[in-house]
């Protein structure tokens, strides 16, 4: 459940699989992972429900995000630091 590399992860991606965890554990883990996100990287969060409460928190913290229907979980949320164009491009270009 910790940030872990998938089989062939995109080089600029950090994966956080919190699918099936009870709130606010997914938020706690996401905020922790974001605090350690290196420049030029984005976080891919896998979750069973849309984390509405997380969105205003990460925006307050200076992050941007995009939510997509997931392949490995119901929702995949891509999160990058605002102004980090490399990370943003890598996130939006990722599948």
């Amino acid at each position: 459940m910790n940030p872990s590399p998938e089989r062939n992860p995109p080089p600029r991606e950090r994966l956080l699989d919190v699918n099936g965890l009870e709130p606010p554990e997914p938020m706690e883990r996401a905020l922790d992972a974001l605090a350690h996100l290196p420049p030029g990287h984005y976080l891919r969060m896998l979750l069973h429900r849309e984390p509405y409460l997380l969105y205003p928190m990460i925006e307050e913290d200076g992050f941007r995000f995009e939510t997509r229907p997931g392949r490995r979980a119901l929702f995949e949320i891509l999160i990058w630091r605002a102004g980090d164009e490399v990370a943003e491009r890598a996130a939006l270009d990722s599948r």
Partner: protein
Amino acid sequence: MSYAGLSLDEAPPFSISLRFFLSAPPFGIAAALLLAWAGPQALASRWTPAALAAVHLMTLGYLTMVMAGAILQLLPVLAGARIARTRAVSAGLYVLLCAGTVLLAVGFLTISRTTLHWALVILIPALAALILIAGGALYGAPSRPQSGRGLGLTLAALGVTLTLGAWLAERYLTPHAPALAWTDVHLVWGLLGWVGLLVITVARQVVPMFQMTPAYPVLSDRWLARAIFLSLVVWSVIMGFAIDGRLPPWVSVLAALPIALGYGWFAAATLWLQHRRRRRLPDVTVAYWRLGMGCLLLAIGLWLAGSAIPALARNPHYAPLLGVLVILGFGVSVIHGMLCKILPFLAWLHLHRARFASGNPRATIPSMKELLPQRAARRQFRLQALSLVLLCAATLWPAVLMRPAALLLAVAFAEFWRLTIGTAWRYRRLARSAPT
């Protein structure tokens, strides 16, 4: 900022709801000690002074106190509904609700019309203000999710309960006292309208989210609260005719069936969803909700039996047992269970916001399980469940069991109070230590 109706920017300070949450358990302790003091005669019928006082300490002092705090906290977040002058409004409401409840209990206990009158003078504006302020905020809210509609019905049910209660209390002990059956209408609106509809409204959000279950079936999610509210209105009108003797009593029993079916469906659906929860780790909120839903089903079963067998309903043990199952078994269990999640969750949320406001975003925040230790919560649950079983038995064998059951209930409430104070103390310590 608002996502799916959630507006964190509108969240009021934690202290506003916290004072309601922390002041509620002492009313539970007072109700239990009152039953212990009155002893075997306490629940000899539902009309004893001790029973009337204890019931109102529990329903107004505990249930309504927590529900008012939760509404003031959640309304702005869930519906983006801004409550004007939240601090002043909540402080005023809090003081009036505490004072009015104490006076009402003293009035019932001492059989004093003057005290009851003053209790009404305080409680009517307090509860009317809650209805008008929360209702007005809902009406003017930018987003009105499904839970907003449920909340509106809940407030309307509180309005009916308050109106009937004020009418009954004002004429209590006078030659103009209304027929006793009107107290049934008052208590049904209070327990199955105000308390029950709020539980149903909140359940659709918190059961799937915090208990990791699938969502409630779409049909019941959308219509159950409205159908129950409508059934309550129809039943009340029919009760009015039955009390006047213009309709036979069995028609009112028939009219109450949809309410019982609605709650039976809700309890069964909740238990079924809990059975299918994704994560099967022990959880005290799940345990409390199971206990609450089980008691609700038992109460419905008992009411159906009492309706089918009039001799059973006339038995003096019947009404007190039904009351214990609904108030303590259903209402208190579900509210305890919700507080075990909502209290540490709100503490965590507000600590997180304080962390950013302090400019120290990497400061460590304890997890929810550290804010409200699970082991202590499970121990408290066992005490509460045991006291509930004992109190149910005490309605049947009061001579032997009433005092030990009531004392154990007081201990269980005191333990719950200790848990909530512990969470608040950890929150305060961490919030104060955040550098500004």
